[in-house]
């Protein structure tokens, strides 16, 4: 069968895509602001999408043969393109308005505890709410609460933050042989949990941290250790027998605070990584560093990474050369006095969140 391409126009930009492509994927091919946001759809996970409704778009012309517009906004992650289809995303006021409403609905039960949440700074829901000006809440009632579940030593579950996108369920289904967690109960009570306290210990289960669009599933070994925008993302790899070993290290100085998979421009992982790489290799010597990871300039993560260099090349010191070989006289070495970021002790070496017992002040 000869491959016939469908012509689809999204926000007045025409692109040809193979039949069966969804509107979202066609828009992602164009890229930029035209691509609708997605909280539940994940291109690497089969069957994901259709739950969060943030990717709603307006179809102003159904196809060449049937040019009638679709009466309602459609979920672009689940709607395939037709030949001659015309789609409006950000050019449609209806879409922008509806999306702002969806964001507000998602935030109904989502606690606004971003100051505490480890996902803050790389949270898709946070980005989305700020983009739509919905960072404050109008909700006046008690938010849903849950019994705490322990998912083992590596993964921290915050069920109150969950938006039930099912990505972690699909990840466990498609990456591991046996899924041990899932969504229990229904409606307002539905929650991610293991049936009868079980710890998740599959070798690839750490990937559910990366797929989580909010801070519901976070890395316990990184919990509260640092904020992502103070860390430097570096591409690195290692010879891993179980996975590709291609990761992003989140460094502060030479300390590796966190290891994640590499994420592309849509916030999706490029290659899944195993638990050993993610949780156990927290030394720079374990990794071959390739260089700084390119971060969007508008992301908070790129703050403090000055002008193009993310610390790969140490600038040559000119002081000695112009001062007859004299070293500058240090009037105060901050590390002698400051107790924060001590060079000797490393928070990243602790495998659990730091507690008050880990901070024995040297002054006291």
């Amino acid at each position, binding site marked *: 069968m000869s491959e016939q391409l469908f012509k689809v126009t999204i926000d007045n930009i025409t692109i040809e895509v193979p039949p069966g492509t969804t509107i979202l994927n066609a828009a992602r091919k164009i890229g930029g602001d035209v691509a609708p946001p997605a909280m539940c759809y994940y291109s690497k996970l089969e069957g994901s999408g259709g739950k969060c409704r943030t990717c709603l778009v307006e179809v102003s012309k159904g196809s060449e043969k049937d040019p009638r517009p679709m009466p309602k906004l459609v979920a672009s992650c689940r709607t395939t393109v037709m030949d001659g289809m015309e789609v409006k995303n950000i050019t449609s006021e209806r879409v922008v308005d509806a999306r702002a409403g969806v964001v507000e609905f998602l935030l109904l039960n989502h606690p606004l505890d971003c*100051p505490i949440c480890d996902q803050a700074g790389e949270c898709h829901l946070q980005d989305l709410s700020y983009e739509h000006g919905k960072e404050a809440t109008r909700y006046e009632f008690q938010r849903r609460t849950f019994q705490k579940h322990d998912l083992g030593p590596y993964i921290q579950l915050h069920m109150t933050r969950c938006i039930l996108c099912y990505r972690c369920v699909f990840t466990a289904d498609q990456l591991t042989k046996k899924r041990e967690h899932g969504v229990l109960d229904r409606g307002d009570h539905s929650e991610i949990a293991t049936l009868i306290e079980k710890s998740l210990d599959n070798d690839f289960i750490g990937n559910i941290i990366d797929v989580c669009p909010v801070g519901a599933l976070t890395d316990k070994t990184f919990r509260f250790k640092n904020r992502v925008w103070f860390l430097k993302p570096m591409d690195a790899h290692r010879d891993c027998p179980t996975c590709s070993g291609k990761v992003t290290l989140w460094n502060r100085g030479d300390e590796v605070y966190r290891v994640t998979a590499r994420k592309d421009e849509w916030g999706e992982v490029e290659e899944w990584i195993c638990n050993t790489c993610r949780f156990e290799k927290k030394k720079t010597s374990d990794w071959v560093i390739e260089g700084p990871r390119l971060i969007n300039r508008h992301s908070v993560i790129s703050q403090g990474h000055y002008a193009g260099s993310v610390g790969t090349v140490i600038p040559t010191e000119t002081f000695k050369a112009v001062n007859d070989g004299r070293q500058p006289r240090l009037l105060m070495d901050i590390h002698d006095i400051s107790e924060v*970021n001590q060079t000797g002790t490393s928070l990243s070496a602790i495998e659990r969140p730091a507690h008050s017992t880990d901070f024995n002040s040297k*002054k006291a």
Partner: protein
Amino acid sequence: MQALTKRAQAVDRKPMTLMERLYLPAIVKGMAITFGHIFKKKPTVRYPEEKRPFSPVFRGLHVLNRDEEGRERCTACGLCAVACPAEAITMEAAERLPGEENLYREEKYAARYEINMLRCIFCGLCEEACPKDAIYLSETFAPANYARKGFIYGKDDLLIPDPKTEPEAYAKAKGERN
């Protein structure tokens, strides 16, 4: 040439008038101004005993605030540090243990919090960035010190006194504005 501003004025080189040449009237006029000040209200403030009121927008030394129950408000979210243009603020966070609920308001707190007063420019952006009302610029100055190391302020220097055990010290540190 037309002057651009009214400030530039040509020097008056006219010969002095008789009144000016007499000299004494000008002296008397000047002395009248000088001695007139004796009877005016003195602007001098006898500093340690008497203090001038602070302006309502004065930005002084930082305090780390507590809530009504004396728990620390700071959750070490890092927004003050990221807002700080002088990069004076650093912190390390920790998780609250069971039994420490009376010490810290949230699950996460700043185990260490430091402000380098040598770097700080007292711009108040940390106060504006704080989502938890945890940091305030108070109505006091950073005291002088002989050594540089005395300007690294840790949590023990910055934390406000507990409002339950030391209400007077708390009210004093908080100032009248907040």
